[in-house]
């Protein structure tokens, strides 16, 4: 099942456009992160996506059908909503709360039957919250309540799950639990769309991302192409570094905010790429079959390269290349990315400080 937002725009009555021609699509197994600075309209986007607010232009589509023309009950058998777990929790027990998720599965005059109780308990067991079944929601911690709300949404057996900041307000153990749950749901073929404040969570969990700027425009695509240092700076007005951290299991990426560079920006007109910045790209290749490719890439970027030093080191079985490059950061980043995905090649770019920019001839 595919969920899509096509050219969605939204403005409050008489107000400015909060969202402007935003598109997104999520198929089975996709995990889509919606990112953006505070007030950029992330929550508005989700509310419009689910039909709680009406798009002024554009539409939300479920398998190509406009959801505003679908019967509510059918819509909510396929789609489910996980609100933020904050404050106003009710005094229902966890099991009663989860059971409410079954409401779209039987008629208005019927009471929940055995199958519904079993479905509710099954979901709770899967999420590991069976022990909470008789606890009142008002007496739960934020993490527990969030899991109960996810369970309530899953009780409807949806194919599309929409979560509003599922991990904010949680400590990092609970953040991890919630994110793990989302990953495993996506692995089961549920399309998950979630709002988040953390670009790092998007990088680590999502395969697609929508970045909304302060102007309400969105940039949608694969996570790697959307969550970049350049785009983060444009959308948030924050210089950030995307770094890789090696853990015993794998390499995870993290987004480290460095400094505020300006107001939260706009996603529309791509800012004229900033001036050049001197960088040294260090390459170590231990696979001879990659050397040819490295050479052709460096040739491709030849116009930016101001110096190059190659040092074959047969004793170590490697080839060491240092390239001095004077190019816009995005160009250097693209080169680094292209080099980095070659087998057997390690690469790292070291940039000069910003103050040095003037010293470098344009």
């Amino acid at each position, binding site marked *: 099942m595919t969920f899509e937002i096509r050219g969605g725009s939204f403005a409050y009555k008489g107000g400015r456009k909060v969202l402007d021609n935003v598109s997104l699509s999520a198929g089975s197994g996709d995990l889509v992160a919606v990112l953006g600075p505070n007030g950029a309209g992330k929550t508005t986007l989700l509310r419009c996506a689910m039909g709680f607010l009406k798009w002024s232009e554009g539409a939300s589509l479920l398998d190509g059908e406009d959801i505003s023309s679908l019967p*509510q009950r059918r819509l909510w058998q396929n789609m489910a909503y996980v609100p933020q777990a904050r404050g106003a929790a009710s005094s*229902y*027990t966890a099991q009663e709360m989860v059971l409410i998720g079954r409401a779209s599965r039987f008629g208005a005059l019927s009471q929940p039957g055995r199958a519904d109780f079993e479905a*509710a*308990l099954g979901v709770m067991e899967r999420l590991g919250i069976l022990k909470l079944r008789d606890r009142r929601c008002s007496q739960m911690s934020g993490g527990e309540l969030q899991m109960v709300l996810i369970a309530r949404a899953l009780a409807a057996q949806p194919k599309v799950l929409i979560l509003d900041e599922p991990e904010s307000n949680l400590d990092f153990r609970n953040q991890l639990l919630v994110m793990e749950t989302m990953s495993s749901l996506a692995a089961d073929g549920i399309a998950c769309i979630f709002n988040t404040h953390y670009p790092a969570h998007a990088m680590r969990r999502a395969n697609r991302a929508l970045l909304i700027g302060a102007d309400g425009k969105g940039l949608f695509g694969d996570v790697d192409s959307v969550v970049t240092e350049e785009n983060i700076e444009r959308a948030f007005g924050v210089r950030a570094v995307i770094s890789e951290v090696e853990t015993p299991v794998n390499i995870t990426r993290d987004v480290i905010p460095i400094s505020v560079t300006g107001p939260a920006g706009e996603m529309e007109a791509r800012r004229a790429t900033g001036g050049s910045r001197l960088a040294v790209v260090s390459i170590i290749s231990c696979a001879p079959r990659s050397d040819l490719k490295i050479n052709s890439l460096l040739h491709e970027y030849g116009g930016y390269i101001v110096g190059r030093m190659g040092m074959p080191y047969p004793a170590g079985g490697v080839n060491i290349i240092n390239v001095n490059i004077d190019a816009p950061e995005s160009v250097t980043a693209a080169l680094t990315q292209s080099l980095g995905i070659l087998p057997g090649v390690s690469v790292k770019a070291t940039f000069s400080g910003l103050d040095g920019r003037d010293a470098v001839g344009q």
Partner: protein
Amino acid sequence: MRKAGALRPRQVVLLAVLPLVFAFAAMCLGRMAISPADVFASILGKLGLGAGCDAQTEQILWTMRFPRVLLALLVGAGLSVAGCAFQSLFSNPLATPDTLGVASGASFGAALGILAGFGLIGIQLTALFFGTAAVALTYLAGRGMGRDVSAFVLSGIMIGSLFSALVSLVKFTADTESQLPAITYWLMGSLNGKGYGSLALGSPLILAGILVLCLIRWRLNILPLPDDEARATGTNMTALRGVTILCATAMTASCVSMCGQVGWVGLLVPHICRMRYGSNHLALIPACISLGACFMLAVDTAARTASASEIPVSILTAIVGAPFFIVLMRRSGGWKI
């Protein structure tokens, strides 16, 4: 497997038997006490299983006490269920037919009906109309102030006092010889002197309201949820809210048109039930029906037996209700529906 929130068989039996026990006791009690044995014999007689009692006892039991017992059961159940529904609808523990202005609106309608010289049906219809108008006004006035505990109650108090003023206006224009005493006495709220006739006129709306809310009682669980979450259950919330308001208002207006403004029942009973049976309407609605009926019957029986001249029942419910209301308000900060 135990169903979450549903009543256990033991509780079902208790809730079913309790009103019968109370009713039996109420038949025995009164200014002229009748022994349980006589009441039992008389009931058997009615069922065609015995000779019954002497004519005077039969007269008291079946022309005076029985309709009144039925009325008390009905009004108690109706007001409690209506109160419970209003609380969930406004997700506000202090929402009741009284605090939302429904009772005042219905009172105004009924007073207007008496002034116009309508019969009981006419009075009921005007009570229903103005009760609905009052709750609609309360909703419109309180909307947009958030789902705050105080918003709807504050607007309800305003609308309530508006209709109270209108009731005074009606009284002012009423004929002091016949209409004014009728309105005044009736407003005090009493279950006195109602025969089977008025019962037959007042009961259908109450019974229908109880039946409908009972049928959709599990869905009522969705009412207190925040709006987005409620809609995400795939339930037609406009219809659910509409049906709930209509039922609760019709029940309140019917009660008011039969026995005046009997306050506090719609607040007291649902909260006792919530404390005892939790917030799940699957259990809550049946509990409200049963305990509401018992409470009203107990208060009314006390009202007619306690002293030689009968105390209006609304005075007694207020004496029990006001302190409870204060306690409730003081702890309502942490009180959730």
